[in-house]
């Protein structure tokens, strides 16, 4: 299983629909400070079910929706979709038979998030469940944000135990 594409629209600074293609195993994302690189990582965290604004560098959940710039007005909704190649069937259970799996999350300012699995409406729990056992998840050690290294370095022994418990 690997990640083929990330589709964003209205998510943080990616106000226009954007498709990120991921054609290989070593992809470097480059650009000046403040251009939106870390926002792509936040998008992946968010679509996998992350619900704490703190982990998404915001103050409220609605902070992920594009809230305007000097030339553009804020928008009312945002959506992110991840498209996985599952030819090797590593995502198990009822989805093992699909060669391609897509998970999507949509949020509007005046209602809750809606989740979709291969185009069909589902619960957040269904998304979290598919990733069980794969080592993936919005808080797993497969997403190392800009502050994670500093948090590990400054961790006191008690905090370090909590990190290990989360990983267990």
């Amino acid at each position, binding site marked *: 299983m690997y990640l083929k594409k990330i589709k964003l629209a209205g998510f943080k600074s990616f106000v226009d629909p954007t498709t990120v293609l991921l054609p290989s195993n070593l992809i470097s994302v480059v650009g000046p400070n403040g251009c939106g690189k870390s926002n792509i990582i936040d998008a992946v965290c968010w679509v996998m079910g992350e619900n704490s604004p703190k982990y998404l560098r915001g103050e409220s959940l609605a902070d992920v929706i594009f809230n305007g710039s000097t030339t553009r007005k804020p928008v009312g909704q945002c959506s992110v979709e991840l498209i996985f190649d599952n030819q090797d069937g590593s995502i198990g259970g009822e989805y093992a038979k699909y060669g391609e799996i897509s998970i999507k999350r949509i949020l509007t300012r005046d209602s809750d998030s809606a989740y979709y699995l291969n185009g069909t409406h589902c619960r957040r729990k269904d998304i979290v469940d598919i990733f069980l056992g794969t080592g993936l998840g919005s808080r797993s050690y*497969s997403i190392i944000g800009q502050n994670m290294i500093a948090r590990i370095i400054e961790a006191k022994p008690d905090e370090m135990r909590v990190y290990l418990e989360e990983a267990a």
Partner: protein
Amino acid sequence: TRARLRDTYDKVNENFQTLFPTVFGGGKAYLELTDDNLLEAGVSVMACPPGKRNSTIHLLSGGEKTMTAIALIFSIFQLNPAPFCLLDEADAALDDANVLRFCKLIKTMAEKTQFIFISHNKLAIEMAEHLLGVTMHEPGVSRLVSVDIQEAIDLAGNE
């Protein structure tokens, strides 16, 4: 849950003891419990770069701490390796010798895991097979641009 935590601790410690010397080109490191009762104990990270005496992670230099944290994070990652891994400027505090060792580690892991990494460092960018440029030509609005290696280095800001 006690047996599970014990098992996790032992496995991470084992991974860490082999991964640290790979990342540093020598030296040794291990985890230490502050108390015999695992459920109450804290976990100290002891690291000793090549040629130095043993100490906790707090007495190391900025770059040495980053390399130790990277070795520890990947020790936990290897418990249950995910199909992809996202890294956001993990190499920021590193000098070139350490960036090269970091790249070597990532390249070996990339045989089984897909890496998407953000970096401003020329050497790390050069290890990529594909580049993804992000710009904000229109202020406040992010857009993707296709870049070649030379453009990427300019865009990332290494002159």
